[in-house]
């Protein structure tokens, strides 16, 4: 071996994303199904860039009402108090549990926004064929995948607060319209991370090394 980088795509081989079996399809554009596990075979995930863009744009649109609309509405005899996600963070902070305030702030506000920005940046870098920082971008993608689920936190906070505080007519908590948009942001960004094909990040590295050699 010359030490040159050889990828599956260069060798005309397709790797099954489920069982990792390598096969040589007759037509790489229509690779068909994995002979071992039956998963759809794709050299690169089909329309990865378009689908990921569509999902993160939809998520970005939902992110605005998710933060502006209340996630919970507390009702007592006299008062009705709507609480947005930031309102919940402030409430936790002023009531003395700043570590939890920080966790909710990170999981609910910063992580979804960071995911949108990170995926947007990765998509732009692939479309421009950026040939630097592959390792950094691969790491960024792994972080996005790893932390994605954690932004579901506030959906669960709302669900169980609403379920538990049902002491009518004394006090009750209702879910606000924001919780739906918030859950949508989390689901859409998780799906976006699944449709994004990280192998696209490395294709520019493969091409560069081929030209050098």
């Amino acid at each position, binding site marked *: 071996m010359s030490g040159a980088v050889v*990828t599956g795509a260069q060798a005309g081989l397709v790797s099954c*994303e489920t069982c990792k079996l390598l096969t040589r399809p007759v037509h790489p554009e229509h690779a068909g199904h*994995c002979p*071992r596990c039956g998963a759809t075979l794709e050299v690169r995930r089909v329309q990865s860039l378009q689908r990921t863009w569509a999902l993160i744009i939809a998520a970005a649109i939902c992110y605005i009402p998710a933060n502006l609309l209340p996630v919970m509405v507390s009702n007592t005899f006299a008062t009705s108090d709507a609480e947005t996600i930031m309102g919940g963070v402030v409430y*936790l902070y002023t009531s003395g549990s700043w570590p*939890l305030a920080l966790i909710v702030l990170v999981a609910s506000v910063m992580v979804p926004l960071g995911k949108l920005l990170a995926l947007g940046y990765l998509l732009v870098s692939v479309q421009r064929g950026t040939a630097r920082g592959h390792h950094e971008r691969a790491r960024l993608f792994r972080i996005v995948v790893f932390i994605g689920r*954690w932004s579901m936190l506030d959906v669960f906070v709302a669900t169980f607060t609403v379920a538990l505080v049902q002491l009518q007519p004394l006090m009750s908590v209702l879910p606000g319209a924001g919780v739906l948009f918030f859950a949508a942001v989390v689901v859409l960004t998780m799906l976006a991370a699944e449709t994004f094909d990280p192998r696209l990040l490395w294709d520019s590295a493969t091409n560069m090394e081929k030209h050098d050699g």
Partner: protein
Amino acid sequence: MSDAARPSQPLMACQECDLLQRIPALPVGGRARCARCGFLLAARPRDPLELPLVLTLTALIVFIVANAMPLMDLAAVGRYSSTTILGGARQMWLDGERITAMIVVFCAVIAPALYLLLMLAVLIAARRPPLPHWSGELLRWGLHMQPWAMYDVMLLGILVALIKIAQLATVDPGIGLFAMGLLAVLLPAIAVTFDAREVWKRVAWKHGDDLAAAAFADEDHLERGR
């Protein structure tokens, strides 16, 4: 030719960067990472089929407890309420947030139940090779469910909810909550102790062995071609 490069080790492409490489035979507890991007290509747990089976069975029992028992009780000025996982989703549904309720049910009940049941079916089938080809299909679906089973996130969410409510009322954690904590540990433990390669090695191919032979012949061809 070095040990790592012997054609007897199957050629594979890195899932994250598509680099072709051979995985050397790993010692127990060993891990193989991609030479280019560092992605974890393979790991060899001590007991890749029996231990995950035991853990999956345990998790299924704990799953039933977590869903049947109250997560927490709340008492305030002589009034009392309690909730289960499904009770939480039900209240969301009743309050008009139906899509959110369905998302919660999916992450809290359906995804983990499917994950555990599919893993159980595959691991039981794996005791008698060759596995029927549908067990490959089941494993594929089971692995898809994994990131959507969110007990770890849910546990933290309930903790935040408890602390918020504790200002207004007395809250006691219930048995369901401890069961959920156990699941938050058991589910990742199944994934870590399980080695999917052991299943794929034993599974009967969906489209027959002639294609299989063709695939591996190609591999040898590639090796000679370099």
